[in-house]
């Protein structure tokens, strides 16, 4: 059963320079209780997709079209007040950078208990209890002491544990983890990934793992959605994706992870397209080594190639044979 069904989602940013089509006709489903990997280069629309589901797309962006069915209800149609009750309670989001996503001026206890109070209308004491309990779940040392502290008094890894706890406070059904480890040290990254994996297993929560890192995808996800320049390139079970991928996915897999100071970046030859005037036809064609004339003219449909595998490429048949 699908917990989330996104169909034909379009989220655009109406900037002075033009309309940035950050998410442009994206559709995919997330099966209940499973971990889905949402991958793609920087700027492909992964975060905006998550923001759209929570309906927190910042200005000047907004959802232009599409449906987001969560547990059978279309979130796009919800009123603001109704939507607010979903956020943090039924759907949560972990941000990429724990340092910037915690408010520096309030104690951990204050920030986290507010969320519990907001949703469950409980007293402060009860809320604090929930906070401590959830912090324990994320294996943060000494949670009773931690709630009295401010974010700057913790290390990056500890802060990310706090952010994970913040997302889990109210046992959400769906959790988006938006590159939760990119801003952390390599050793800490592994700890956070294994924590998320354990939590997902223990709680049986549905997890959408947004990442650059194919290694993380291989380790955690059952199913993968590959985004490029606001379009879905490929959807499929992990094994199939690694075996017979779309040219863009293949490039992603081939690209060597490059250790930047803080972020792990992948590099594929060529540049990420401008989303104000994106390439015609297949958005990947300017960088695709298999591109033919048709690719420039016509957008390839997302075709069902069997075995829950979907590909958006004019040449998938030939390429699969060739592989």
């Amino acid at each position, binding site marked *: 059963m699908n917990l989330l069904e996104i169909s034909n989602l379009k989220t655009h940013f109406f900037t002075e320079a033009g309309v940035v089509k950050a998410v442009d006709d994206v559709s995919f489903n997330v099966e209940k209780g499973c971990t889905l990997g949402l991958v793609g280069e920087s700027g492909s629309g992964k975060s905006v997709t998550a923001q759209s589901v929570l309906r927190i797309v*910042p200005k000047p962006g907004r959802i232009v079209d599409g449906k987001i069915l969560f547990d059978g209800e279309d979130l796009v149609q919800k009123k603001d007040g109704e939507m607010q009750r979903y956020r943090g309670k039924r759907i949560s989001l972990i*941000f990429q950078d724990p340092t910037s996503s915690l408010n520096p001026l309030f104690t951990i206890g204050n920030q986290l208990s507010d969320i519990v109070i907001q949703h469950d209308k409980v007293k402060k004491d009860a809320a604090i209890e929930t906070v401590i309990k959830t912090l324990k779940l994320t294996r943060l040392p000494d949670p009773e002491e931690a709630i009295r502290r401010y974010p700057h008094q913790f290390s990056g890894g500890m802060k990310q544990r706090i952010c994970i706890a913040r997302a889990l406070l109210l046992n959400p059904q769906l959790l988006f983890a938006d590159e939760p480890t990119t801003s952390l040290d390599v050793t800490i990254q592994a700890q956070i990934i294994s924590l998320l994996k354990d939590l997902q297993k223990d709680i049986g929560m549905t997890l959408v793992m947004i990442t650059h890192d194919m290694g993380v995808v291989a380790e955690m996800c059952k199913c993968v959605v590959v985004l490029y320049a606001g379009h879905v390139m490929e959807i499929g079970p992990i094994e199939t994706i690694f075996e017979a991928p779309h040219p863009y996915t293949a490039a992603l897999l081939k690209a060597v992870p490059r250790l930047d100071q803080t972020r792990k970046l992948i590099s594929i030859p060529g540049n990420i397209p401008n989303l104000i005037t994106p390439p015609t036809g297949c958005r990947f064609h300017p960088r695709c080594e298999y591109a033919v004339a048709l690719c420039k003219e016509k957008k390839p449909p997302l075709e069902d190639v069997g075995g829950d595998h979907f590909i958006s490429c004019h040449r998938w048949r030939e390429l699969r044979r060739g592989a």
Partner: protein
Amino acid sequence: MGFVKYIIRRGIYMIPLIIGISIVSFLVMYAAGDPIQIATAGNPGITEAQRDFLRHYYGLDTPIPAQYVRWLTHFLQGDFGQSLYGGRPVNEIISFYLFETLKLQLISIFLAFFISIPAGIYSALKQRSAADYTISGISIAGVSLPVFWFGIVLIIVLSYHMGLLPSAGAYGSPKLWPVFGISDPTLDALAHLVMPVTVLTLASLAYNVRLLRAGMLEVLRQDYVMAARASGISERKVLYKYSLKNAITPLITLLGLSIGASLAGAPLTETVFSWPGLGRAYVNAVSKLDFPLIMGTTMIVAIMILVANIITDLSYAWIDPRIHID
């Protein structure tokens, strides 16, 4: 660290500053001229011997360092001496004007501060909307209207033509003020405040609003604001708790500066509304070279500015746990 220790230390640092300020103003004052000459200039019958007597009486005939030491000794005991005009104790004069100035200024400063909070948040939120432009327009009009002109227009319209509000002073009902026949002293004092407060508030509102608007625009882009929204925190709380505190520091700085400077009064506003304030009294004292009153006022203003500074610095540490005072 300890707030108390910090305050004590800052207090100690103030001492040399205050003494330095007092020496400089003493010297400048003496360079400016002979107060007895000025005081007696309008009196052709006065002899040089009589002037010498006056100089001796006010202690102006001893060497400047000696005069300074005498002034300092009294100052340290909290005594600013007597005015050269009428001989009233400077302490008494200052405390009267000080109260009136503070009343007028603090009301205006805090009014501007509190109005600017919703106005600044709203215009940041609705950036480039009609409401944003309206708020900017009103506040820019407020800052660019000359106080002199605006004050006089208010007086002409509200006092002279409509007889609604008293046009001058802080108390008492002059002729233009009989409409409601108000005799209650509190109401009377409030009625006198309306126009000068309006002028002063509008004059500083623009800076407040623009500072907060700029701060909020910056803060609203931060991840922690999106994270608060993503957690389902109500919009009101996102703005007034999780954004305002992060955006308010520049406004607090302005508040501290304005409170510190407020004692010097706003001589122009005080003049237009014949307000019995320290600003006007100060200008008056300087023009007459009323040495004890000049020194007294200068010292009070300086101390107030320094104290406001310390309080402002303390409030930064109180707002932001990352700032350590030491």
